[in-house]
């Protein structure tokens, strides 16, 4: 755990293709991209050996910061500042859930300096990784959190290899909104759903991670499709203090209320699983019901019915209650 950054070479990418070429040339571990910098710089300041590249490829000047609306939805460039997402009238009208979620990231200064792509793809905050323990994400083959202090940053829905949670706020909201991500790489471009972006822990380009963006790929854009008329949404983030902290549990909910009873419910939890966690049982529970306090409670219980909190190490069962509370409060906030 340190605070200064080791020397690195800073390369201004001239285009997305140029950035991809540079990443390929330097290789995994030797180069990473930088947009806002709050993620990669913090990893380097933490002194995480496998996350301290020799080269940073700056993609902030490639024009990937935009919010554009077309007839189908909203396109948000991956290097758009999070505070711009929060303040965008387009986002607040077409996808207020995203504005709420992104508005709860960390602090105002960090939202100014970070990007939406950076938040979605940020590294986990497990204290072992951040103290340069040689875990799965840092050149080793063990998860210290699974057997140690897993109170704040580890999964209550089980896992494999790395049990650290995806702690970001944007991804659960994007998932609930049915967003898609466009990724460009050496073999071309692909546009995938959030579920496909976050399939769970696997080894990608030699790295243990929970998303599918390879070491020489760049996520360039998010697309939020228009929500059906009558859709209401709600976001709730449970954290220790009233600002700064990552979610102990969060919930992003969208429900179509045009018929009086819920339909097309989408319930995605954040901060409780290695990926944004789609609570299918809660979705099934909600569909067909009118909203009431009892229904909120029922949905909350359904959302955590298959939780498997860690019992090795210190344990994190209390976060099951918090996840339930997040769902209840997100539903109460439906608007």
């Amino acid at each position, binding site marked *: *755990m*340190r*605070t*200064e*950054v*080791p*020397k690195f070479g800073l390369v201004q990418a001239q285009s997305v293709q140029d950035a991809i070429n540079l990443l390929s040339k330097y290789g995994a571990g030797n180069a990473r991209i930088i947009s806002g910098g709050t993620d990669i710089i913090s990893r380097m300041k933490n*002194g995480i050996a496998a996350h301290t590249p020799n080269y940073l490829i700056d993609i902030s000047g490639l024009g990937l910061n935009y919010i554009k609306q077309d007839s189908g939805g909203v396109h948000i460039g991956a290097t758009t500042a999070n505070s711009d997402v929060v303040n965008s009238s387009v986002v607040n009208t077409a996808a207020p859930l995203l504005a709420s979620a992104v508005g709860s990231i960390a602090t105002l200064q960090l939202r100014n300096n970070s990007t939406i792509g950076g938040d979605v793809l940020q590294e986990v*905050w497990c*204290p*072992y990784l*951040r*103290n340069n323990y040689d875990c799965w994400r840092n050149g080793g083959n063990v998860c*210290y959190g699974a*057997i*140690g*202090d897993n*109170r*704040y940053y580890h999964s209550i829905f089980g896992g494999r290899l790395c049990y650290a949670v995806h702690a970001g706020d944007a991804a659960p909201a994007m998932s609930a909104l049915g967003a898609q991500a466009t990724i460009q790489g050496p073999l071309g471009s692909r546009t995938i759903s959030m579920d496909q972006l976050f399939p769970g822990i696997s080894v990608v380009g030699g790295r243990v991670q929970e998303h599918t963006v390879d070491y020489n790929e760049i996520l360039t854009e998010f697309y939020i499709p228009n929500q059906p008329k009558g859709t209401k949404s709600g976001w709730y983030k*449970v954290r*220790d*203090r*009233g*600002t*700064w*902290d990552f979610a*102990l549990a969060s919930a992003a909910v969208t429900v179509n209320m045009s018929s009086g009873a819920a339909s097309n419910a989408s319930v995605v939890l954040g901060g409780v699983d290695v990926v944004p966690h789609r609570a299918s049982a809660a979705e099934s529970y909600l569909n067909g019901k009118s909203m009431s306090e009892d229904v909120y409670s029922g949905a909350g219980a359904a959302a955590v019915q298959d939780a498997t909190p860690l019992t090795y*190490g*210190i344990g994190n069962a*209390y976060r099951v*209650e*918090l996840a*339930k*509370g*997040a769902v*209840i*409060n997100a539903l109460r906030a439906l608007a």
Partner: protein
Amino acid sequence: MSTPSKFNIIGNPNINRRDITRKVTGAAVYAWDINPEHIGVDGTVGSGSIAYLGVVTCPYPRAKILKIDTSAAEAAGFVTLTGDQMPPYSYLSSRNSLALPRTSDITMYPGQPVVAVAALTTDQVEDAARLVTVEYEPLPYILEAEEALAPGALQLYNGGNSPAGGYTNENGIAPSTINIKFGDADAAMAKADVVVGPLVYETQHEQHYEFEPYAAVAQWTNGSLRVWSSNQWAHNEASSLAAFFGVPVNNVTVSTALGGNEGGGVLGNGLGDKIYQELEVVTAAMAQKTGTVVKGALMRNNQAIWASARFPMKSYMTIGAMKDGTMTALKATVYTNCGAIGGSNGDDAISDFYNMYNIPNVNIVGNSANTNRYHSAGAMRDVGESQGHFFIESLVDELAQKLNMDPAALRRQNLRGNDASGNPPVDPNVNQPYSSSAQPAAFDKAATAFGWSQKWQGWGKSSQVNGPLRRGVGIANLNGAKGGIIGFGAGQLQVSPDGSVQAFTGLTDHGAGGNTTFALEAAEALGLTSFDNVTMVMSDTSLTTDTIGTFGSRSTRACGLAFIAAARDLGRQWFPIVAPKLAPNTDPKNLVFGNNMIFDKTNPSNGISFTAAAALLTSPMKGSGFFPDPNNVTERTTGTKFAEVEVNTETGAVRVVHFTSSIGIGRVIFAKGAESQVRGGLFMGIGETLYQELYLDPTTGRHLNPNFHDFRIATIMEAPDQVDALWIEQNDPVAPWGAVGIGEPVLMAVAPAIANALSNALGGYRFRTLPISREDIVAGIQWARANGTL
């Protein structure tokens, strides 16, 4: 104020902090800010005239150093310093620990500095550290005090793990370091109608997280050492450094930050962390090695671990009372975790147990143990009394619960305070009177302001319910050792012919407002209604004298009494010069300072202005004052605190809604500053109660959160809706104009007030460890649901 003050300036509610403009415009230079330009050294980047120092630390709680290899760092152009290269002296502690350990030594706590490195820019310091390789053999370690004192425990030192130096006896018990006994607690407990306990209470390992990390700039010139550092006790630092390096103390000059006129009162808080000299010793030794000025400026992850800490405590408590609420017996066995090198501690915590209430039968055993948990038990705001208040005021609340008595009424009934004639109470341990007490007046004032009788709904009932939000109210009394004089006070006041005044004190201002308070005291002592012409010369060993340090909530009292004495000494020299200018036969012994004048107290119209009197001088005149702490009174700070909290029973989130603090301040000197202290103490207490904890990996014993990310201090979002800062001016007789210290008392009793309120919100569930984490709150919510109180 509706009535005119009898004072010249103290207590004036409109006085602003006099150094605040410098701080909010960035003009104030802290030690951490010192650039070469500030101290007249060549400022060219990389010129080699100033080097930056960092440290390489050992991650293990206990390890043998097998090999230190600095060759790669040296080859890259950096300079390194190891314990093998430092003079073999011992350092302050009962455990003779070295500033840097040597090869084959055993490191004793996680994060212990092992090698120092120096580089030419700040960016490169960690580059240098990365090139140093140290091989360790990790060794078994002990983290808990009770474990360290158990029979057969790993012996961390020859002679056992108790800092008293004793061996454990055949029963595995270390000789007690603290024994408080009066009356017969066992007999009284047996006769009590109600006994609560034994219950176990525990508090956490915390550290200061003061915003300005440690910094020291060291410069040797022909065998003389100049140090500019972020310190709370410059004079002690100078004499310690002189002893370490074997130079006469006159050859060592230390200041807080830049020192000089107005520069020595700039310190980015300390909270007790900056009374020690480890960094200065290593920085000065590196300066010797490099031949340059060296600036040691700690990174936060090192700062979070270094110097002293709030020592974790564990207390087994039992209390007995009669059914009418009269407390009769108190027993406690206390364990204090002193870290690797700390001495015996816990006295002040234990003093809170038996001072708070009139309990005639008391038996308290206090054990201290060294462990590998952290560096050293030592000063951190409250030293033991955050813990002590949490222990006794939680226990008493549980007694009230068992008696089904209003917890405020139970406390009021047994409260140690002034008698009906206003005579102060007696400290039962040493049988001497308090110099003053604010009780029961502080209690009554607080209860009324808070609205206790309207809010309290009885045991098992939240004070207010609003859907999933439940409120609770709680109370805790304050009776603390901090706020006394400690040692002595010394200071000087110098007047110049132009009427300007220089006030000299060895104290500094770590944020508590000393710069303003001391200036107010200097002005008051000299009868001035403004301090505009007063310059504060603080914490610079070339200009001031030792007055012991800025800690222990002592400085208002020590400085004020010293300045009163200094003004008297100044008058002794000055008034014989003034008297001949007044009415014929004016006796200089009748002259006094007051209302910007020097006048005859037997005939107040016979006087001249302070400025005119100064013009009579041909050169500056200095008065010197000294005030020793009398040893025939007990100096304690008293008061009462109430809290109203709100718990979200779906998420476990806790909010302090309303907090009332009522403290016997003796006399308000710096009104705005005192109120700010109450608010600041509350925020620190909120963090201490709900969030703050330095935790280790359970498997390896290494630190997991030496940073602000995961050591969570209160944010602006934790701000309560209402905070009342009430004062009782009980006019302590051993105090300047009656004023006692409150810098730490504002933090004491905050934790139990909040914990007791939380308990009330959740139907009586008890929180017996600090911090009360989200996990603990969830457990309380689940209990309350299962017990039908939710």
